């Protein structure tokens, strides 16, 4: 079935594809979409966070602000980009440039690919929790269209901080989860070796999230996975991103923001959920079930 991960893959095989070292990363998509991409840097407070790429470029004759959580292709780049685990400064850079996009009316594309926000002492000292909280709240006040796509790993609050959008897409072999399988296993079993079981229970594949109504669309990857054909993967993502953005562009600002509010306000109502997911909720009357109000 198009738009769904191949049924023949196990959940853990999808996790491995989502984390594949040859998988296209954010800049592989952004540079193809906007060959004239100019990167902007810095939170204007104290740091630049290389785990988040941010800047502007020309896409389909428009100026667009791009964000991408960026992994490294080799060890040196992985270290410098901190395996795409953002510090507070990354979220502050994102909000600075999202507000700039709002000022000039540029649409925003955000590519999500992170194991999670960085679990380190410096991030805590500089307010990682609040930085994510401010970003999540801030996105609801950005009066331009925002389209996000999970291109690899969508890990926890660190991913959500860059995925509050009018439309959220997922590449077929990407994952998006309340916690990484390892972290969930550690929390639930106190044993992160149970990650395979945890991954299966968490329902983290693009198919699961589409069924739950959490993402609007799944972008099919080239046969075997995006890592086998970066060009084809980028073409597919570009086309779907554009189809969604094109629908958003004419929507008046107040309506756009109201829709964004409602998208997340009722995201757990399963109103958009696939039929094979919805029936799990037994109606128990209006007050008893958050799905019905």
């Amino acid at each position, binding site marked *: 079935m198009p738009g769904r991960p191949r049924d023949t893959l196990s959940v853990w095989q999808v996790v491995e594809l989502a984390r594949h070292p040859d998988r296209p990363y954010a800049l592989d998509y952004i540079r193809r979409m906007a060959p004239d991409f100019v990167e902007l840097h810095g939170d204007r407070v104290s740091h630049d966070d290389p785990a988040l790429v941010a800047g502007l470029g020309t896409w389909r004759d428009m100026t667009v602000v791009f964000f991408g959580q960026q992994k490294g292709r080799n060890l040196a780049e992985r270290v410098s980009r901190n395996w795409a685990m953002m510090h507070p400064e990354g979220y502050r850079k994102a909000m600075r440039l999202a507000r700039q996009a709002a000022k000039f009316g540029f649409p925003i594309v955000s590519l999500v690919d992170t194991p999670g*926000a960085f*679990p*380190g*002492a410096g*991030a*805590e*000292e*500089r*307010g*990682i*929790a*609040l930085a*994510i*909280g*401010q970003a*999540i*709240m801030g996105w*609801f*006040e950005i009066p331009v269209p925002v389209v996000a796509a999970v291109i690899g790993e969508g890990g*926890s*609050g660190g991913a*959500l*901080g860059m995925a*509050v959008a009018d439309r959220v897409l997922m590449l077929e072999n990407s994952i*998006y*989860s*309340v*916690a990484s399988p390892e*972290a*969930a296993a*550690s*929390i*639930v*079993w106190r044993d992160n070796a149970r990650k395979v*079981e945890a991954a299966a*229970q*968490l*329902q*983290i594949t693009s198919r*699961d*999230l589409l069924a*739950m109504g*959490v993402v609007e669309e799944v972008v099919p990857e080239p046969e075997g996975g995006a890592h086998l054909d970066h060009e084809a993967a980028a073409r597919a993502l570009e086309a779907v991103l554009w189809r969604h953005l094109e629908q958003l562009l004419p929507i008046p600002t107040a309506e756009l923001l109201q829709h*964004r*509010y409602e998208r*997340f*306000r009722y*995201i*757990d109502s*399963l109103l958009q959920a696939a039929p094979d*997911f919805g029936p*799990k*909720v*037994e109606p*128990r009357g209006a*007050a*008893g*079930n*958050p799905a019905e109000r």
Partner: protein
Amino acid sequence: MAASGGRLPPIALTTNCPSCGVGLVPETLRDQCYVCDCGHHFRMHGDAWIALLADAGSWHERWADIRPHDLLEWKVPKAYQETIDQARAEGLNEAVRVGTATLAGHPIWLAVFDFRFVGGSLSIVAGERLTRSLEQAAAARTPYVLLAASGGARMQEGILALMQMAKINAAVGRLHQAATPYFSILTDPTYGGVPASLALLADVNIAEPGAAIGFTGPRVIRQSTYADLPSGFQSAEFQLRCGQVDMVVARTELRARLAHLIELYLRPLRGRR
């Protein structure tokens, strides 16, 4: 003003204070809001917080009948439905309860986390109750008081638990747009999705002395980075130095402080057009 809105309910206590080691006299502790003479603040559960903050008889709980569901059919190591049923059999009603009350006579919305319900984890029901109450507070410009205590998002509700952070923060944004005073009290422990959503976004962030507050817990940080963490890392006092909270307030002073803040923030403007 009395230190509490009414007599606090009994809570389960260890036999000795973990800070100073003295033997505890439950009735004495109860009379001093479960704060040891040494200053140690014992964790309180939802009922106790409501009794502390709400004027006696003023609490009207809302949406208590919204219940969790096992949407993911979570089975191992323990079925989620069983987890829910056990907690409810103990008389607990989800990780967050919300309602209206008065505090020193001022109408407020009050939301309390209860750490006993799956570690105060952020769930769909918690998110729904928080969001509804935030929306109603914004509509009526009623001050909003949050009592936070949480270990993070609820794993057993998967991605929909994570989505609560966005849903809640959208409503917090509307609370701010409506210029509605918002006070957040962060207690021990407050970690993960709760400080990364609403708990640090208040007009005044108040922490309890000694409370551990952060995004990632110290165990995970040590595992990931092999770092030595300084003593007091992520304590309320650390968060004060790090600019995240406005004040650290002893529980015995909390009610009076909140009453004063509500008066300051709600005072009608004078002379301004």
